[in-house]
């Protein structure tokens, strides 16, 4: 990379700042020295007391953590080699992850099962700052799609190891988890089933609908407008709107109730997520098919392909990366939206979020929110990698 023109010699060391690094260092300085690292509460619902790094950790450990943060912030601040920046971000993130667990143990009085220790704003901001640094390094390293998925797997394994090692067991979010271990996994699988199931249904219906809209131009504007309007209905309103018709179906269609179709519960949540998913799938199918070069389509017909051969042999493969982008939007959107399904008894991680809000227990809210964000994040990385691989396959193969 070429920077500013070199100054003549004799002017001393040429110090250059990294633009993003300046921001990261400023955030880290604030979070490390001014913001609270952990919150201590006598029980799960009373207001907490802030604890800085120095208060939350044994003296030597606290000094070590501050030293790591300062060193990493300096590495981020100046233009330094990528490997060094990678090491700085990883070391800091690992140290933060390990030491928040130590803070949990350190701050909890021995034998007290009511006291709660949770990460406070300083911890979250530090995590954010050094994740930003890590993301920046990974972007600059220009990793291949497979390597990015590999990084994701390594991160997931590291977090699982930390969870299993028990070093976080004294943190309040895990205490909430231990109280609800069974329902956590049940709601988790319900959450994933809702998000993936509605996506699958949207693809099964949306792809043919998109192809249909592409072929019959008169339908296109109408269908897309209807889907657009559905997209603008607030999710809670849509759940409400679905109660009456689904309730009617449950009582009047034989066998519907046995299938689990009711005015509230999983069925309306599933239908609502499905409806929200249709627009991105249909719209991206239409856009993808419209982007197929005219000449290729004309040649395909002129060569004697039937409509079906042309669809599966030419149009669909060429539109596939765009369609996949629509599926990615839907998956990430559904993982987030499925949280709201809990409002009408649809289950999912939202159950913990709304229980937590109801009890003003923020740790419980986090127990629902953190896995949701992690799932959406992982889904985005994996699908981005798949999209890049399908789009560049024809280029890479012969490179």
């Amino acid at each position: 990379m070429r920077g500013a023109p070199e100054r003549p010699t004799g002017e001393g060391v040429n110090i250059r700042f990294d633009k993003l690094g300046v921001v990261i260092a400023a955030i880290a300085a604030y979070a490390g020295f001014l913001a609270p690292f952990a919150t201590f509460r006598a029980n799960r619902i009373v207001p907490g007391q802030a604890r800085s790094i120095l208060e939350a950790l044994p003296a030597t450990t606290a000094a070590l953590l501050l030293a790591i943060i300062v060193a990493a912030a300096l590495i981020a601040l100046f233009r330094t080699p990528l490997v060094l920046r990678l090491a700085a971000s990883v070391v800091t993130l690992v140290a933060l992850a390990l030491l928040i667990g130590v803070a949990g143990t350190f701050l909890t009085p021995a034998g007290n099962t009511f006291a709660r220790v949770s990460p406070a704003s300083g911890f979250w901001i530090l995590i954010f700052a050094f994740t930003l640094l890590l993301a920046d390094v990974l972007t600059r390293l220009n990793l291949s799609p497979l390597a990015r998925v590999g990084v994701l797997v390594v991160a997931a394994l590291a977090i699982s190891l930390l969870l299993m090692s028990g070093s976080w067991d004294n943190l309040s979010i895990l205490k909430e988890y231990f109280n609800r271990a069974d329902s956590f996994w049940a709601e988790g699988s319900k959450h994933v089933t809702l998000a993936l199931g509605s996506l699958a249904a949207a693809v099964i219906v949306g792809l043919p609908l998109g192809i249909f809209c592409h072929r019959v131009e008169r339908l296109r504007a109408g269908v897309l407008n209807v889907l657009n309007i559905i997209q603008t209905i607030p999710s809670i309103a849509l759940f409400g709107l679905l109660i009456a018709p689904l309730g009617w179906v449950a009582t009047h269609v034989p066998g519907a109730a046995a299938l689990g179709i009711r005015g509230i519960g999983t069925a309306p949540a599933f239908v609502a997520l499905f409806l929200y998913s249709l627009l991105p799938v249909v719209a991206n199918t239409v856009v993808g098919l419209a982007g197929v070069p005219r000449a290729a389509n004309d040649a395909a017909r002129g060569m004697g392909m039937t409509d079906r051969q042309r669809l599966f042999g030419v149009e669909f493969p060429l539109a596939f990366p765009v369609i996949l982008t629509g599926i990615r939007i839907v998956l990430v959107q559904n993982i987030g939206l499925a949280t709201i399904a809990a409002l009408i008894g649809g289950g999912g991680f939202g159950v913990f979020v709304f229980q937590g809000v109801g009890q003003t227990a923020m740790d419980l809210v986090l127990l629902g929110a953190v896995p949701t964000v992690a799932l959406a994040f992982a889904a985005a990385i994996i699908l981005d990698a798949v999209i890049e691989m399908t789009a560049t396959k024809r280029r890479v193969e012969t490179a």
Partner: protein
Amino acid sequence: MIEIEGITKRYDATTVVDDVSMVIEPRTVCVIVGTSGSGKTTLLRMINRLVEPTAGIIKLDGADNRSVPGYELRRSIGYAIQGHGLFPHRTVAQNIATVPVLLGWDKDRIKARVDELMTLYQLDPQAYGPRYPHELSGGQQQRVGVARALAAEPNVLLMDEPFGALDPIIRTKAQEDLLAIQKRFGTTIILVTHDMEEAVHMGDKIAVMDAGKLVQYAKPAEILANPASSFVETLVGASERPFRLLSLGRVRDAVEIGSAEGEAIPGDASQRDALAELLWSGRPALPVKGTDGKPLGRITVDGLVKRAARPA
């Protein structure tokens, strides 16, 4: 033989092709020329039924082209278009193999045919077969497009401005290649263009279309000498006429007895090129040599000027 009988195509109120009748002899090149919107492309696309006519019949070797389903008909007719229309997600070899695969040829036969065509078009099958279209130059892409159209050994090849996207030097080469391959396989070619130069150069017969009507259908020399209407005359270009007429003849046919000084002109060069060489070198005459290099005689400015005059 292709017989077009009273073909008409109407879209709502507009008549795009208006009662066109013509016969295209087998193993010849027929060039349909006209301005844009003249209906030439529509006429071409009605031959392989990419467009269905409103009225009239097209017969291929005596059989109505509606006697088989459209897609089956199109597999038996070659089709090459401007901008080549190669499939970007398929390799060069897969592109060329398109119609043979549709016809269900066995693998060995397809590979043999693809290799044959690529070799014919000076593309090494080993090096270029596994590449993707975007990795080729414009000229190479065009050659692959024509090779793909010829893959299933069709008797008839339809071409819609196949050389339109090429630069002049590559275009001339592509035209020569096509004529050579047409002679080799005896394919009947129907080629649409708006370029009269290309029409005169390529066509055994030229069909001039204007506003959906077939204005004149004749040999190039006849079109140049006796344009049927003022439109044809404009299309031919008054200032270009004598040179186009000369471009139809070979030097060997204009040789006079005698000898001359200077660089010899090959006997199979066009008379137009010979005239250009004479004018440029400033000589009244130049020697002519045969393909074996032996002198055939000479060619003169006066002789060529007489030949460039309007035929009686």
